[in-house]
């Protein structure tokens, strides 16, 4: 995997809006963003209602994913180009999720909605209609998904990368600074975790930094390239962004996203927690 395979530029996207076999998909938590104007031809996925099981705290199962993509008019042969707001957080989450269910031809629009809007490129409220397909998903590829016991076992053995802000890492706050404070029972981080906020991997306009800058960033933070890595945040979407950087852009081989993240870990009874900034 490399930058050319995993990312497309806004210029490329603009030239390929009507290309056969290319489907643009906007992924946001706030679907009013899509409804207020989206990239021409793009379909919408709602991070919460489409991709999360509505009862159990987990993904939708394979059959539901097949049904969802079929209804959206996405076929197995299509190249899916994902984009969204929040610096592509949820688009990166969806990217990881598409990979998990075995869709190989998936790419992220570099800079997402933000760069597209700042560039003044076209957005439309025209409804997108695509013909229903019969999408076939594969069994989930759990080689890119970490679960809680595996994360606990990784303490002292693997790279743990906490991609939240320094104040969330140290335990000063439990949720990002633009949200009311809520969620996990206890603040702090997993002992031994590195703190490399996701935002350090992105430029101001939401595009990813260069491979050289990214290599220096994680190397400088102490990420040992010879070890496996688990990334986590609060609910698994910002860590998808970092998973994308480490696994898809930098090509590290064994990188998992712990989507249970701090809301799960920080609510478990008896697990080790560390407070304070990195020494």
């Amino acid at each position, binding site marked *: 995997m490399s930058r050319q395979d995993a990312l497309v530029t806004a210029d490329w996207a603009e030239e390929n809006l009507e290309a056969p076999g290319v489907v643009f998909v906007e992924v946001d938590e*706030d679907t009013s963003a899509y409804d207020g104007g989206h990239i021409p031809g793009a379909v919408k996925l709602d991070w919460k209602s489409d991709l999360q099981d509505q009862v159990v705290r987990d993904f939708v199962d394979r059959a539901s994913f097949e049904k969802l993509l079929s209804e959206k008019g996405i076929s197995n042969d299509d190249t899916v180009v994902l984009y969204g707001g929040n610096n592509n957080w949820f688009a990166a989450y969806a990217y990881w999720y598409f990979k998990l269910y075995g869709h190989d031809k998936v790419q992220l629009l570099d800079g997402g909605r933000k760069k597209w809007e700042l560039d003044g490129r076209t957005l439309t409220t025209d409804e997108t209609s695509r013909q229903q397909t019969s999408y076939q998903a594969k069994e989930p590829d759990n080689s890119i998904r970490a679960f809680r016991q595996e994360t606990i076992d990784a303490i002292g053995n693997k790279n743990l990368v906490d991609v939240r*802000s320094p104040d969330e890492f140290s335990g000063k706050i439990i949720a990002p*600074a*633009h*949200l*009311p404070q809520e969620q996990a029972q206890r603040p702090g981080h997993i002992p031994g975790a590195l703190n490399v906020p996701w935002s350090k991997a992105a430029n101001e306009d939401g595009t990813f930094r260069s491979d050289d800058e990214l290599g220096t960033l994680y190397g400088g933070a102490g990420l040992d390239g010879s070890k496996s890595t688990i990334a986590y945040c609060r609910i698994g979407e910002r860590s998808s962004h970092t998973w994308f950087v480490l696994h898809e852009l930098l090509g590290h081989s064994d990188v998992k996203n712990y989507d249970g993240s701090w809301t799960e870990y920080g609510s478990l009874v008896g697990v080790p927690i560390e407070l304070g900034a990195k020494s």
Partner: protein
Amino acid sequence: MCGAPAQDTDLPTGTDLARDTVLAGRVLADGEPVGGAFVRLLDSSGEFTAEVVSSASGDFRFFAAPGSWTVRALSRIGNGETSVQAGGPGLHHTEVAVG
């Protein structure tokens, strides 16, 4: 919930201004509100902390901690930034001019 809630001026239920440090304000260009601007909260070392999109009335809001902050706005008509000193909990108002 990890997306930005509606950036209106009413504070969400459960906000306790005796406990919470809220930075709120508007993005303006020549005195007129700028909606759809990307408003970034940077800490005292200039590191990114959070980002929201301003409402149609130019309003934005962050839940932060006491300290020195920079609020930087990116918009199609230009960028701008301002500093905010949040000495303690409560509602701290600011305005960011872009252009």
